[in-house]
């Protein structure tokens, strides 16, 4: 299944998120990730939704129906070639400091805190794939807890 990102600018009103998620449910999609933040314009939110769909026409139709909402100012699809998709992960893991050093330079992370000799809290930022790769390489068995923001995207 092809992963898609939809960017929507919406009025910052109560109920808007509800409306949008209801539409996506009605169309029988499972939202992969959904992030909302303020935009440059006061009162306008910026929403990035990712979901899986191969059929181009279906995505176009979701976008048209999103745009139909009074509160949605504009919506469009962002593809990976013409936009950056990034997310942030905060990871608590049990690993030797020396082992962690091997990852420096290859992955974009920052140590927020060293809780004990081998418990670290890291912050990673990057593409979904690079975060996945980091976690795989370090080994899932070392991970105590992880929080990921989901994708936010910006056109190049």
């Amino acid at each position, binding site marked *: 299944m092809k992963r898609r990102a939809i960017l929507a600018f919406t009025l910052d009103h109560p109920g808007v998120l*509800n409306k949008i998620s209801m539409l996506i449910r009605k169309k029988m999609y499972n939202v992969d990730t959904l992030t909302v933040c303020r935009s440059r314009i006061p009162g306008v939110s910026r929403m990035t939704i990712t979901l899986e769909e191969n059929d181009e026409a279906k995505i176009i139709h979701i976008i048209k129906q999103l745009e139909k909402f009074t509160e949605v100012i504009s919506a469009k699809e962002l593809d990976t070639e013409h936009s950056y998709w990034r997310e942030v992960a905060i990871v608590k893991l049990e690993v030797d400091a020396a082992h962690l050093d091997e990852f420096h330079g290859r992955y974009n992370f920052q140590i927020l805190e060293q809780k004990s000799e081998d418990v670290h809290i890291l912050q990673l930022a990057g593409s979904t794939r690079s975060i996945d790769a980091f976690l795989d390489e370090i080994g899932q068995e070392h991970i105590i807890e992880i929080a990921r923001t989901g994708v936010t995207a910006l056109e190049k």
Partner: protein
Amino acid sequence: MTGKKLLLKALKDRRVKFIFGYTGGAIMPVFDEMEKMENFAFVMSRHEQGAAFMAQGISRASLSTQNPQVGVCMSTSGPGAMNLVTGIADAHMDSVPMIAVTGQVATGVIATDAFQESDVVGVMMPICKQTYMPLQAEEMEKTIHEAFYVATTGRGGPVVIDVPKDVQNELVGDDYAFDPETCRPHLPGYYYSPTPEREPLNRAIDMINKSERPVIFCGHGVINSNAGDLLRKFAEKVNIPVAFTFHGISAMPADHPLSLGMMGMHGTVEANKAIMESDLLISFGMRFDDRVTGKLDEYAANADVIHVEIDPSEIDKNVRTSVAINADVYRTLHVLVGDPMVSYKPRRRWLEKIAAFREIMAEDLKEEIEQGTGEDGRLLMKTIIHQLSNLTGGRDLIVSDVGQHQMMAARFYNYQTQNSWFGSGGAGTMGCSLPMAIGVKLARPNERVWSISGDGGFQMNAQELGTIMEHNIDLKIIILNNGYLGMVRQWQTFFFDGRYAGTPMRSPDFMFLAQAYGIPYRKVEKLQDVEPALQEAMECKGAIVLEFVCDPAEVILPMVPAGCGFDEMMVKHPNKKK
């Protein structure tokens, strides 16, 4: 000024005359205020669903008049609001502008499961065009005006305004000011493009001129934008036959030589066959729903599609378009009718072919209508509608319920008056007819209005006979009683080996029911009595109930079975030799 006063002032400023509704704790302050004002005609329904359909009737019927009005219904919180749901969802499916005002529990107790609290905004959100909950009296007028704007612009739809009780009673500050004349809703995310763009229009014109087997589609948008005359002029100008969606019916005279009648599941043979053979569909204000298209993969396989539609999300939804014109139907037709580039063609071969399609069922239908009764001598709905059409000259207003009788009324009444056919299309809500007809009659008091229901649907909102009685509504009420939920029975006959599960129905004696409300009643069992009874109903003053005892075995044909292509259209009863 209080919130309730401002609410009613805004309705008054919007020229609302009729308010349909039912009171209760959370809306009492507004009702109380209404009682002190003189400009509203309040009509109490007997069930909130009735109020919603009455409001729909006002909107649907008045949009083609000099004085278009938006229907308004009002209910209390909780159960009152929940009873509006069906009528609102129905208006949403059929793009009918409407305002529903619901009382809500006070803001202080919202979300505490207070007495008669329901999450009205949450429930209504997916079944209406927009919802509002003003939280301060100051927001009231602005909200109501914005609601009317949203309900009536672009593709119309119902808007729900949920008003907490304390906000109804709240006073606005001394410095409160609002001018309905100059207020413009601030809706940066809401736009619609009424004017067609030149580039797609040119491509469309080119295709129209080149096409050999074109068909024009007349949808609800033609009625909603009041463009029936323009559509007829356009069809005549290019000499292209016109097929109608369920809601496109009555946009132009049904017996116009270019009319193919209704399309789709129970459409005419000529409409459906023409669509299958067409090379170009020129569609105005419609959405290619599954009752119209049947199986999409097989639908009009050789046709290009020009789609004129005000709602961009309908374009390319079900059928791929060659030319999309996202614009108001009236404005688009206005350009097409006036454009000298659009040319006439004799289309002799195409029209001859269509004339042959017309013959396929014509003889059978004519025979059946003349016969007038089924095997056991009970009346045929077709014949009753046909006679009604002849007697009224096709000029009356018809409000149908949902079922076989609805398809008969769509097919066999010879509509002459623009916007004279009403009912529930997208939702197919049984019980809509009686209350909707009340709204239609109030919106068009000088025209004769017939409410046509089956025995099933009639009993779904029969309580509104009380409203008819109380307000002396002059409705000609027809019950086509076949003792069954006939449309479902027809499916059971065709596709379920004739097992009539949950469709036979015993009805009350409708005479006593009518009498209980003081409404005259006639029962018609014989063919020769049909015409005199209809005649009497036409001539009598005030409401009358006519019950016709109909043949349960009658079917409406042709029929494209659900999910099938038009190739599988049934034109003959599968169990009958003849």
